[in-house]
C-alpha cells in the first residue's frame, strides 16, 4: 500500500483512501510510543531536514521525535541561526541542502505555497508543517485521528471550530480532512475573523457560539492570535472572551460524550477557561501524543517509494 502522492502539502484534494491509510498506519504506530524502547528501524539511512522559517515548539519537536523514533538522521534548521540572516534566498538555501544528499524536507513558512514551490526545486519528499494561513495538514490529521480514536469513526460526527478561522491553517486542514471523511463541520467566530464567503467551504457558519453548539460532538477551539487584536479585528480580549470564550456553562448544549480539543498554544482565560481545558472531556494532551504517531505514519508512508519507483508505477498506470 502506498500514498498516491510523494508529498503531503494539504488535505484539500487529498483522497479519502490516502487519509484512511495514514490514520490506519498511525493507529499501528501509536503502540510504539508505549514501548520501553520507542524506536523502530524503517527509516534507517534516510536523511530528513526540518526547515523552520517560523517559530514552533510543538510541531518542530514532534516532527524531530517522530523522525528519530523511525531511526532517520535529522537536522533542524531555524532561520535565526542560518545564512537566511545574510540574505540567502529560499531556493538557494534548499538547493544547497539538497546538495548534501537529503531525502525529505519538513517545512514551515510564513507564506502560503512555499511547500508547493519546494516540490519544483527539489527531488526530496516535501511535508508541509504549516504554510502561512493555507494549511497545516499533519495537525488536521492528528485532530481527526484523535476524534477517530475516541469515537471509532469520523463519518457522521459534528465538529465545531471556534475562533480565528480566517487566519487559521489548522482550521482549513480540519475542514478539508473532516469533510472528505464524511463529518459535518461548523465554524464560529466574530465576522472579522471568518473568511470571506466561508460557506463555500461547505460548512455551517455561525457568529453566535451558543447556537453553534447545538448537536455538536467535538469542539475544536482555535487560538486567538493576540497580535491580531492590534490590527483591530476585535475590540478587546474581554469582549472576545464574553462572546466566544468556551466556558463550562456553554458546554451544556453539546451532545453527551462531547470532546474538547485545542491545537495549542492555549491562551487560558481568553478562548478557553481552565475548567474546560483541564476538564474530563479535554483531549488536548492526547492530541500531542497522537501527533507523534500521525507524523511517524506520514514519514513512513512518504519515505516508502523512491522517486523512480513512483514514476515507473505511474507509467504502468
Amino acid at each position: 500500500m502506498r500514498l498516491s502522492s510523494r508529498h503531503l502539502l494539504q488535505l484539500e484534494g487529498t483522497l479519502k483512501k490516502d487519509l484512511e491509510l495514514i490514520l490506519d498506519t498511525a493507529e499501528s504506530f501509536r503502540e510504539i510510543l508505549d514501548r520501553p524502547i520507542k524506536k523502530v528501524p524503517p527509516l534507517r539511512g534516510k536523511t530528513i531536514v526540518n526547515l523552520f522559517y517560523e517559530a514552533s515548539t510543538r510541531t518542530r519537536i514532534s516532527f524531530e521525535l517522530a523522525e528519530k523514533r523511525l531511526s532517520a538522521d535529522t537536522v533542524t534548521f531555524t532561520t535565526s541561526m542560518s545564512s537566511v540572516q545574510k540574505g540567502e534566498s529560499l531556493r538557494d538555501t534548499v538547493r544547497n541542502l539538497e546538495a548534501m544528499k537529503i531525502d525529505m524536507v519538513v517545512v514551515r513558512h510564513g507564506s502560503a505555497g512555499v511547500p508547493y514551490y519546494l516540490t519544483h526545486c527539489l527531488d526530496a519528499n516535501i511535508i508541509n508543517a504549516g504554510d502561512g494561513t493555507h494549511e497545516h495538514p499533519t495537525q488536521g490529521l492528528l485532530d481527526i485521528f484523535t476524534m477517530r480514536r475516541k469515537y471509532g469513526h469520523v463519518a457522521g460526527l459534528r465538529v465545531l471550530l471556534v475562533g480565528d478561522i480566517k487566519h487559521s491553517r489548522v482550521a482549513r486542514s480540519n475542514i478539508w480532512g473532516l469533510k472528505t471523511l464524511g463529518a459535518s463541520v461548523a465554524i464560529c467566530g466574530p465576522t472579522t475573523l471568518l473568511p470571506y464567503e466561508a460557506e463555500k467551504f461547505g460548512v455551517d457558519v455561525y457568529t453566535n457560539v451558543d447556537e453553534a453548539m447545538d448537536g455538536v460532538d467535538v469542539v475544536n477551539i482555535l487560538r486567538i492570535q493576540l497580535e491580531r487584536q492590534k490590527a483591530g479585528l476585535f475590540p478587546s480580549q474581554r469582549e472576545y472572551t464574553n462572546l466566544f470564550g468556551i466556558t463550562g456553562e456553554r458546554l451544556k448544549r453539546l451532545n453527551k460524550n462531547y470532546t474538547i480539543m485545542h491545537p495549542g498554544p492555549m491562551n487560558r482565560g481568553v478562548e478557553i477557561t481552565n475548567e474546560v481545558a483541564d476538564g474530563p472531556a479535554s483531549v488536548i494532551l492526547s492530541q500531542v501524543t497522537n501527533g507523534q504517531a500521525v507524523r511517524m505514519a506520514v514519514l513512513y508512508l512518504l519515505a516508502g517509494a523512491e522517486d523512480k519507483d513512483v514514476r515507473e508505477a505511474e507509467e504502468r498506470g
Partner: protein
Amino acid sequence: MDAPKVTRAITRIAHEILERNTGAGSLVIIGILTRGADLAARLAKTIEEIEGVKVPVGLMDINLYRDDVNYNPDQPVVRKTEIIFAIDGKNLILVDDVLYTGRTIRAALSQIIDFGRPRTVQLAVLVDRGHRQLPIRADYVGKNIPTNFDDNVQVRFAERDGVDGVLLYPASAQRAQGSTTAAKRKKK
C-alpha cells in the same frame, strides 16, 4: 496436511514445549501476524488444556523491522503489535506458520530485543519448508515439507480460513495456471 494432522502437530508441539521448559510457569508466547498469531492462540489453548495454566499471548507485526523496506516499491501495511506483558527473564516461544528464508524470524528477533531481554527465545513453526538464507532453525516443527524455492506453501486455520490445513502449490502447476502468486513469493 489435513485438519486432524494439524491438530495433532499442535498438540505434540505443546507437549514438547512443556517438557523442555518443565511446565508453563515461565512461558510467554508471541505470534507473528497473521497466521503465526492464530497458531500462537491455539498453542496457548492447548497448553492450558494440558497444564491448566494460562500463558500470556502477544502478537507482533514485523514489517518495520524488515530488511527489504527500502527495496520493495509497495510499502508493507503496518499492523498492530500487541505485547502487553513483560518478557524479561521469560522463556519466549516465538510462533510462525511457515519457516522459509528465515528473514521474518530475523526481523522478529530484532523487535523482541527492543521489548526486553527474555531468558530464552524458542521458535515454533507448523511447517519448515527449507531454503534458509540466514543461520536460523526452529526448536519445534509441526512438519518438514521439502519444497522447491518458488513453490507456494499456504497454511489455513479454521478461525480465519474456515478449515485447518497446509497446502502445497508446486511452482510448475502455477505456471501452467498463469497464477501470479508464485512470482510474488519468489520476490520475497
